[in-house]
């Protein structure tokens, strides 16, 4: 403190300050407990798929943002309104490691992490995102199929919006949703990223970003997969199908081959 402040009386004794703090701390802690916000750990991580802002809350992961294509500062600001944030390098390292393993082909690496979708306000969107998590790696669904799967068969547009505002890309695999005409469609982090993520799962689009020639159609309910030309595929609505890059991935996801069309 500067010398002039002596005019205003001496500063308190440090021993007194210590004593007061000892009394004040537990009292303050009790009071803060009553108005506490949940805590979340945040970090910026660099991965092979770009720089990401991530946030992990008490009930699971709450945010993943591509920092080059979305507003990271805005996202951080929103999170601060609801959570007590702290930067946590340990969480950052764990998640960066998961994503690296995922990009090298270990699809389970991200599937196992708990996600918290409670920040998604619309019930419809939460339902769609939860259902999307059950679409196995190595396969894709169309916007229309996902709409159908959550019991809202004509809301493929709303599904599109839901994917665009997905708070947890990679973890909630919105890259596995494609257009009904068989083209790969758009992606919040850019199409190149969508192709890269799908590629890491063993799904490779052809050169026109369309479904590959080896694609097979798996039925969501019966767990049987068919060639695209199979009569049962033509008979049932296109909306009911999961699309795998090839038979091996369909088998890997626990589906069996159709006995009519005998896919390879």
């Amino acid at each position, binding site marked *: *403190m*500067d010398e*002039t*402040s002596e*005019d*205003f*009386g001496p*500063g*308190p*004794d440090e021993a*007194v*300050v210590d004593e*007061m*703090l000892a*009394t*004040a*701390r537990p*009292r*303050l802690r009790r*009071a*803060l407990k009553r*108005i506490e916000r949940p805590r979340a750990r*945040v*970090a*910026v*991580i*660099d991965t092979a798929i770009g*720089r990401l*802002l991530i946030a992990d809350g008490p009930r699971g992961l709450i945010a993943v943002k591509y*920092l080059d294509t979305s507003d990271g*500062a805005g996202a*951080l*600001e929103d999170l*601060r*309104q609801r959570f*007590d*944030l*702290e*930067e946590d*390098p340990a969480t*950052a*390292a764990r998640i960066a490691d998961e994503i690296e393993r995922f990009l090298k082909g270990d699809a389970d690496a991200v599937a196992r992490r708990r996600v918290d979708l409670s920040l998604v306000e619309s019930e419809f969107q939460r339902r769609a995102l939860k259902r999307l998590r059950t679409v196995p790696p190595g396969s894709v669904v169309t916007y229309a199929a996902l709409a159908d799967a959550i019991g809202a068969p004509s809301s493929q547009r709303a599904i599109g919006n839901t994917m665009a505002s997905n708070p947890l890309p990679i973890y909630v695999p919105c890259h596995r949703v494609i257009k009904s005409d068989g083209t790969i469609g758009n992606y919040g982090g850019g199409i190149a990223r969508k192709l890269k993520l799908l590629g890491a799962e063993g799904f490779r689009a052809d050169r026109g970003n369309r479904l590959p020639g080896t694609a097979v159609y798996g039925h969501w309910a019966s767990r049987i997969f068919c060639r695209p030309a199979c009569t049962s595929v033509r008979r049932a609505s296109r909306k009911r199908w999961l699309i795998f890059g090839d038979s091996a991935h369909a088998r890997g996801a626990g589906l069996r081959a159709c006995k009519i069309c005998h896919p390879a």
Partner: protein
Amino acid sequence: MEETARLEMPPAFEEAMRRHEREIMRYILRMTRDREDALDLFQETWLRAYRAYPRLDSAAGLRPWLFRIATNLCLNHTRDHARRARVISGEEFEAGGRADRAGTGGSPDGVIDLRAKIGKLPNKQRQALVMRKLGGLDYGEIAAALGCSEEAARAGVYLAMKKIKGAE
């Protein structure tokens, strides 16, 4: 991981408390010179800070922001208490006239007198003065706390000092 970007945000609230609780307590004690009052005001300062914490947008603004909260609470407290004392005793008390309730030991008369004078200052000048002389903030921080320029903060303290000395 040196290439990892740092997040542009204030530290976790716990960390803010760890860093600043001591100087805030010292400041409040100096302002009130009453232990009970200081404990209450300390508690209130941090509770308010916690509620408003999401609205604080930069790490650099943290210290002045905390001092502003503490300053306003202390000055309001002093003002309200002086008013109450006036009503109760029926006599003209000046703001800060409660120095007789010795909290941190007896205070020399000169101090009481000063407090009365501080009570008469315009609000901005009073805030700037106590932050500078009792809180030890630099002019940049005072400017940040009061939302004015550094020159205005400097002028506020200067004018306040001049008034206090001139009124002697």
